[in-house]
C-alpha cells in the first residue's frame, strides 16, 4: 500500500488492526505517528489508551499484553512498537527476549479494539524469518522508504506551493543542494524559511544561505576549493567552524583525503580520454560528483593535486600517531601548502 493512499484512509477514520511502517524516512514516520493518534482518538484519551514500546528497552510481550487489553475508555487502544529488531537479522539487546510466538497468535487473530503499529525503521526485513513473512502477509504494510531525488524535490515543491509561498528556480535549486534532497531535513528547514518569509511569502536564495546550515560534505567541498586556490584564511576558517560543530579532526581529514583522491582519479581518467559519464561508471559514483570534481580541477596541474594529497596523508599520520596536536595538523598543512 502506498503511503499517501494509507494516510488518506487513516484521515477518514478507516484503520487496519495491524500496521507495519517499513522504511527509514523520518518525516513520513513522524507524520504517520501523529496522524494515527490524531484520528484514532481524542487527545484527552491518549494518555490512557496509547502505549509506546521501544523494543531496545522492553520485551515484545509488554506491547502484546497491552494490545490484548480492552480499551480503558473509548473505542480503541493504540499500541506503538518501535525498533522491532526481531524482524531483522540483527540481535536483540542483551537480556531482552521477544516472544514471537505470541505475536504469531496475535497476527492470526488481532484484537478488534486495538490498532497495533510497528515502526520498522529499517531498509529491509529478514525475510528468511517466519515472523517477518507472517507480519508482511497479515499487516497493512506501508512503505516509508526515503523518496528518490526527483520525488523528494516534487514533494517539497508541492509543500511550498500549498503553503502559499514562492521560490524562484535558482533559490529552489540552492535549497535542494543544501538539504541534499533529504525530505526530513527539507521539511524541518522549510519551517524556518516559512517564518522568515512570512510577510511577502517570497523565499530568497539569501534566506536559504542564512538559515539552512551546510552539512559536513558541503563544508568539505568548500575547504577543497579553498585549498586548491591556496586561500588558507578561508580554508582554516571553515575548518575551525567544523571543529566548533564537534566534528572530529581525523574524520574531517579522512573525508578531505577521499575528496582529493577522487580529484586525482578524475584528472587521470579525463587525461586518458574518458568522458564524465564513463568516469562515473568506472569509479562507481554519482555523475553529479564527477561533474563537481571536474569543475574544481579545471586548469589545475597534477603536481599541485599530488602535493595536497600527500600533505593530507602526512597530517593524518601525525594525528593518528599523536605527533603534535590533532586540531592544528590541518592548519599546519594548509599554511605549508599555500606557501609552496
Amino acid at each position, binding site marked *: 500500500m502506498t503511503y499517501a493512499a494509507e494516510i488518506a484512509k487513516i484521515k477518514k477514520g478507516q484503520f487496519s488492526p495491524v500496521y507495519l511502517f517499513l522504511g527509514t524516512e523520518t518525516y513520513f514516520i513522524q507524520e504517520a505517528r501523529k496522524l494515527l493518534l490524531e484520528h484514532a482518538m481524542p487527545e484527552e484519551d491518549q494518555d490512557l489508551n496509547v502505549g509506546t514500546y521501544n523494543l531496545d528497552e522492553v520485551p515484545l510481550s509488554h506491547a502484546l499484553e497491552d494490545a490484548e*487489553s*480492552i480499551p480503558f475508555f473509548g473505542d480503541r487502544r493504540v499500541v506503538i512498537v518501535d525498533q522491532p529488531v526481531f524482524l531483522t537479522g540483527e540481535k536483540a539487546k542483551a537480556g531482552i527476549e521477544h516472544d514471537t510466538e505470541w505475536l504469531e497468535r496475535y497476527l492470526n487473530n488481532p484484537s478488534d479494539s486495538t490498532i497495533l503499529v510497528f515502526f520498522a525503521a529499517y531498509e529491509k526485513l529478514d525475510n528468511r524469518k517466519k515472523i517477518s513473512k507472517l507480519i508482511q502477509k497479515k499487516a497493512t504494510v506501508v512503505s516509508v522508504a526515503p523518496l528518490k531525488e526527483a520525488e523528494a524535490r516534487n514533494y517539497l515543491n508541492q509543500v511550498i506551493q500549498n503553503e502559499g509561498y514562492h521560490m524562484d528556480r535558482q533559490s529552489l535549486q540552492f535549497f535542494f543542494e543544501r538539504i541534499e534532497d533529504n525530505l526530513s531535513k527539507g521539511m524541518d528547514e522549510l519551517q524556518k524559511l516559512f517564518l522568515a518569509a512570512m510577510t511577502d511569502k517570497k523565499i530568497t536564495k539569501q534566506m536559504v544561505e542564512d538559515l539552512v546550515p551546510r552539512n559536513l560534505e558541503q563544508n568539505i567541498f568548500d575547504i577543497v576549493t579553498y585549498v586548491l586556490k591556496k586561500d588558507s584564511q578561508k580554508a582554516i576558517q571553515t575548518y575551525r567552524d567544523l571543529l566548533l560543530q564537534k566534528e572530529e579532526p581525523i574524520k574531517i581529514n579522512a573525508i578531505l583525503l577521499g575528496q582529493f583522491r577522487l580529484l586525482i582519479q578524475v584528472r587521470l581518467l579525463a587525461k586518458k580520454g574518458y568522458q564524465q559519464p564513463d568516469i562515473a561508471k568506472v569509479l562507481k559514483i554519482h555523475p553529479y560528483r564527477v561533474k563537481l570534481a571536474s569543475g574544481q580541477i579545471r586548469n589545475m596541474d597534477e603536481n599541485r593535486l599530488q602535493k595536497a594529497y600527500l600533505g593530507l596523508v602526512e597530517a593524518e599520520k601525525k594525528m593518528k600517531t599523536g605527533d603534535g596536536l590533532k586540531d592544528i595538523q590541518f592548519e599546519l598543512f594548509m599554511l605549508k601548502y599555500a606557501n609552496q
Partner: protein
Amino acid sequence: MKFNINRPAFIKYITDVQRAISSRTTIPVLTGIKMVADKTGLMLSGSDSDISIEIFIPIEDESNDLEIIKEGGIVLPARIFNDIVRKMSDEKLTIEVGDNLQTHITSANAAFKINSIDVESYPNFPTIDSNEVISLPTNLFKQVIQHTVIATSTQESRPILTGVNITIENGTLKAVATDSHRLSQRIIPINIPESLSENSYKVIIPGKSLIELSRIVEDQDTIDMMVTENQVLFKAENLYFYSRLLEGYYPDTNRLIPTTSSTNLVMNAADLLQATDRASLLSHEGKNNVVKLSISDEKVELSGNSPEIGTVREDLQYQEANGDPLVISFNPDYLKDALRTFGHQDVMVSFTAPIRPFTVVPVDNHTDIEQAFIQLITPVRTY
C-alpha cells in the same frame, strides 16, 4: 566538626536518609550524606534530585546520647559510611572532621579515616513557604499510599502515570493512580484549617516518592504537607521529606468509573485472592498471563491454563452472585494487587460487560463518601 552519638540510634537515622541517595547520579556530591552539627543538634541530609530527606536529631532527645563537641559540617560517601557505622561494635560512635577533609570515625578500638567532600559543595534544598500547611492523619495517609501506588505505571514513556494524582478540596483528600490497565482510587476526609478551606490543591507525586515516604514515616498522629509549584514537603516531627512533582495534566479519571453494573459478585477478599493466586500458578507459566472468571446462575468458576502444563478450575465460595451470566478474562496479578488492599474484608466485584473494566469495592464502606475506595481493572479479550 566533632560529635558523639549512640550508634544503634544513628544507624536508623542514616538508613532513613539513605533512602533518598542513589549511587547512580550525574552529580557526584549527591552520592554522599550531608551532616551539619550545631548547638541545637545534628542535621542529616540526602538527595537524588527527585527525593530529598532531612532528619534532625535534637540535642535534647536523650535516647540518642548526642553530644556536639565542635560545630561544622561535612559530606561523607553514603554507602561506605553506612557500612562502616553498621560494622562497628560499640554503642558509642565518634565522628570528627580532621585536616584536608578527612573524617575520623571511631568506635571502641576501630578507627576509620575516610575522604570527604566539603559541605559547601552540596546543593541547597528547596525552601518551601510554610504558610499553607495541611495536616494529614499519618496512618490513614500511609494506607491511602499503599492502596493507590499499586496502580502507578512503571513505564517512563508515560511519565504522568508514574505518579499518584492527589486532590485536596472540600475537606477531602482524593488519591488516584492508574497505569491505563487498572485504577485505584481512595478518598479520605481531612481537617483543613479555616484559612485554607477555600483553597484546592492538585498535585501529582511520583509513586516512588510516596513508597519511600510510607516506609520512613513513624506512627505519629499527623504529617504536615506543604506544596509549591514543583515540590511537595512532608514534615513529621524531625523528618523533612521533599519530593519533586510531576508536571502536566492528569487524565480525567472520573469518567472511567462505571456507575452501573449488570453482574455483581460478593465474597471475601482474602478467599478470592487465594483462589486467584492458585489460578495464576499456571497462567504465569504460560505465554500470556490470563485467567478466566465465569459467572452463571448456578456457580462462579475461576480457571486458568497453560498449554505447556495444563489447566486449573475452581468453584468459588461466594456470598452472593446476581445479574447477567458473564465470562471475563483478566490479568490475575492486577486482581491480586487490588484484593491485597482490602485485607479480610468482604468485597463486591461489579461487571458491566466482558469488554468493559470491572470494579472491586468494599461491601462496608465505613464512610458517607461515594466511591471512597475503589479498584478498577481492565479485562483482556476472551478467546
